[in-house]
């Protein structure tokens, strides 16, 4: 089984060679495109099947691990496919597969396709390898390889200075994160160098050290996943890459980061302390709230989506935090519920975030614009994209019967189990986090009403938007597939939740009851009297109540329709500029949260009576994390570099003084030491 996975990964790595060959092979450049993406599809498909097979328990256990004589010499590279990695592998390769389909169409619009092709498939391979790695060295090697390849993908449009800046911030943050994980693994491995995961699982750490490992894991994996306040790189880097890569970065790579966190904290570290859950919950809640508030304020479609990723990561971490809190008390069934909720949201987010990024990519291809305020009316020119994007928006806004609602519902159910927790702090924090989640859920809906309403509805705000055209069939197919999956998970959540049973069984020692056997495929996580949900029935209900009245009205009342001028209360404004913009849409909520969270400054430049110039209004928003965490560090490094730089310009005599000083110092040390 693992050999199939290995072969698929190798294929993916080799396909990276298509990059340099682009345009040099006989035949057209499009052919290399097709080879690379087609191969990518094949590889992802094999890997996804492997993951599914492993998850369904169809494979012998010993077929699921391998040790290769590479990597650390005396240890070798260990790979293993356990339920956790299998689940994430399904998520990753489903995303990868569809991204490859999308890439077939989207890739033809690249200015320098070689820069994408060369790293896209290795990136996919890297994502998978992280999941398979079973020792610290292989894990970090693949982890950093993943960062490296995605960094180069962010640099595809390298002529834009903003992208270069984004890529730079990204790679530095990625490297810091890797070092955090490296230190965590160093602690877990101990001075003897037990780098294998099996050895780490077996050895027990001092509680103090466990705490350090937890914090390092939060910093390392959390920064990659986009936990506030380490998130500031994410909204820069994710949008800068080509859209199918953005989809992978936001939809998939953040999931691999979550995998890293789960692997270290829930698997390798052993029994959690009660307050671990508290820390993770608080961070998750903070991330969810901040992420969505920033998302709401964005005017750049892709950046908005990236911030929304931050929000969703927060949601997943809330699930994980609850799981940790329950696990610490030995409440395994609630822990399994919380973990399932978090992991299901992992799958869901990968689906709808990819869909949304693909939609944004389609808009970008069609109009060349990412700024919401230069779009509008695309629903008429890109009907298919519009409807698929709408599905994505509805799914991410947790509207039933789509998939986003299911995972959010499950998380709420887990929160409702929390009064059973004995710790006071948790009793206060959990409901507060619940309130924050509720708030952010509502704000997500607002955010995506804004995104969809400004980009696709209304009248075109620019010539580019007016001249937009529908995208090609590959892109359409990819988006259709994702939309269908969003609906499928929403309507038949039981089937997907059952996939998670082996994962929770392995990590928490319990799993939810088998869901797919219940009548009508209803979801009953704990007990029927407690809570249940049936997406299928709800879908049928809504369909029934939509179609029947419509038919009745059309049959018995009237179906006459007339097109007329815009009414607008009798004073129609013909200029599209009079429409609401993204900034004005968000203004009421900016007033509510703005000064506190964004340091929002609104400046109005109102001409005096008699002046003929136009009035101007500008808003300045800042990402707090950037100001508080990133900028001071950058300034400190800059300052130290500036100070130390004087040492480059000394005279030889002064350099000699340094040598002399070192000598005298060491001799003094020696004299005193003796």
């Amino acid at each position, binding site marked *: 089984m693992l050999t199939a996975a290995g072969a698929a990964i190798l294929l993916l790595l080799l396909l990276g060679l298509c990059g340099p060959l682009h345009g040099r092979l006989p035949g057209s450049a499009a052919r290399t495109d097709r080879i690379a993406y087609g191969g990518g599809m094949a590889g992802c498909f094999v890997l996804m099947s492997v993951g599914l097979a492993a998850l369904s328990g169809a494979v012998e256990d010993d077929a699921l691990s391998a040790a290769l004589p590479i990597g650390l010499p005396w240890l070798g590279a260990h790979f293993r496919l356990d339920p956790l990695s299998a689940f994430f592998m399904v998520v990753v390769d489903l995303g990868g597969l569809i991204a490859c389909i999308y890439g077939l169409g989207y890739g033809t619009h690249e200015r320098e396709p070689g820069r994408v092709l060369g790293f896209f498939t290795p990136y996919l391979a890297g994502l998978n390898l992280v999941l398979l790695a079973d020792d610290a060295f292989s894990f970090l090697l693949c982890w950093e390889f993943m960062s490296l390849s995605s960094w180069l993908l962010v640099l595809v449009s390298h002529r834009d200075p903003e992208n270069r800046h984004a890529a730079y911030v990204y790679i530095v943050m990625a490297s810091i994160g890797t070092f955090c994980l490296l230190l965590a693994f160093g602690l877990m491995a101990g001075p003897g160098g037990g780098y294998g995961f099996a050895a780490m699982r077996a050895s027990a750490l001092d509680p103090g050290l466990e705490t350090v490992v937890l914090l390092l894991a939060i910093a390392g994996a959390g920064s990659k996943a986009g936990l506030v306040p380490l998130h500031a790189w994410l909204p820069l880097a994710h949008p800068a890459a080509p859209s199918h890569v953005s989809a992978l970065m936001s939809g998939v790579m953040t999931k691999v980061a979550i995998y890293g966190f789960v692997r270290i904290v829930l698997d390798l570290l052993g029994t959690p302390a009660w307050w671990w859950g508290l820390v993770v919950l608080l961070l998750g809640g903070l991330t969810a709230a901040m992420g969505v508030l920033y998302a709401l304020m964005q005017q750049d479609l892709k950046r908005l989506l990236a911030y929304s990723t931050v929000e969703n990561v927060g949601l997943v971490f809330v699930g994980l935090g609850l799981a940790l809190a329950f696990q610490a008390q030995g409440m395994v069934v609630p822990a399994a519920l919380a973990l399932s909720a978090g992991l299901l949201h992992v799958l869901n987010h990968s689906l709808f975030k990819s869909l949304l990024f693909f939609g944004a990519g389609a808009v970008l291809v069609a109009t060349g614009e990412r700024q919401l305020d230069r779009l509008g009316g695309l629903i008429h020119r890109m009907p298919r994209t519009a409807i698929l994007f709408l599905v994505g928006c509805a799914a991410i806004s947790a509207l039933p019967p789509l998939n986003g609602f299911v995972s959010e519902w499950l998380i709420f159910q887990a929160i409702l189990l929390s009064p059973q927790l004995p710790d006071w702090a948790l009793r206060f924090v959990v409901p507060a986090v619940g309130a924050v989640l509720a708030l952010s859920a509502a704000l997500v809906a607002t955010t995506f009403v804004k995104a969809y309403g400004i980009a696709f509805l209304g009248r075109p705000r620019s010539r580019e938007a007016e001249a937009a055209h529908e995208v090609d069939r590959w892109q359409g197919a990819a988006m259709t597939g994702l939309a269908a999956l969003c609906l499928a998970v929403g309507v038949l959540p039981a089937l997907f939740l059952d996939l998670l049973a082996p994962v929770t069984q392995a990590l928490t020692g319990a799993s939810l009851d088998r869901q797919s056997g219940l009548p009508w495929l209803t979801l009953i996580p704990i007990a029927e009297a407690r809570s249940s949900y049936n997406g299928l029935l709800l879908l049928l209900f809504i369909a029934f109540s939509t179609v029947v009245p419509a038919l009745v009205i059309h049959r018995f009342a009237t179906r006459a329709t007339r097109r007329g001028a815009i009414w607008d209360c009798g004073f129609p404004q013909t200029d599209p500029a009079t429409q609401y913009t993204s900034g004005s849409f968000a203004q009421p909520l900016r007033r509510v949260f703005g000064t506190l969270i964004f340091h929002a400054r609104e400046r109005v430049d109102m001409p005096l009576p008699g002046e003929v110039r136009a009035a101007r209004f500008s808003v300045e928003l800042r990402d707090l994390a950037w100001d508080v965490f990133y900028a001071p560090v950058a300034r400190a490094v800059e300052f130290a570099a500036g100070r130390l730089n004087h040492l480059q*310009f000394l005279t030889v005599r002064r350099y000699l003084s340094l040598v002399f000083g070192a000598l005298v110092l060491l001799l003094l040390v020696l004299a005193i030491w003796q």
Partner: protein
Amino acid sequence: MARGLAFDISHLLAGGMVLLSFALLYQDRMFSLLRIYALHALVLSLSVAWQAWVQGAPHLYVTATIALAFKAIVIPVALHRIVVRLGIHRTIETVVGVGPTILFGLGLVGLSVAVILPVTAESDALAREDLAFALSVVLLGLLMMITRRNAVSQIVGFMSLENGLVLAATGAKGMPLVVEISVAFSILIAFIVIGIVLFRIRERFDTVDIHALDSFRGERR
């Protein structure tokens, strides 16, 4: 010859070198500096010759000869001519005052004694005392290099440092390759002197001439 006398004489010579090193530190006139340096080299050559005799190591006479001919005569003369030809100022600009420098130098001597003192006495006392003096000479030479702004006096500092090394090497009984090392060092010094003449080194090595400015190069600020 009594063992005591041999010890006293070599002690005297080595101590003389430390004293002359202080004189170098103290001196602020160019030509006097060169003369004191010549004396420094002369004492070194005497000391080496004395060691050759005491240890019965004839090859050390070569070293002594080199010290005498090259360091005590050729180099000072050459430097003298350079100073005259290049029109270098005859007074030496120091970075810190002479007083503090001397005090600091005394501290250095104390330091060298302090670090050498714990050496077990089984390695013979001659070597041990010599070593403390040699270390002092080395440190004083370095101190001189960093407290003078003028290239010529810095070279003098380096050469006195090197004299300390030769003193240490000859004090180490039976050490092979001493001659080779002293030759190698002489070549090094010759290079430095030639370097001064050829390149009229200025900028980074402070100045040959105190009026020349530091012109930072390569990577300008």
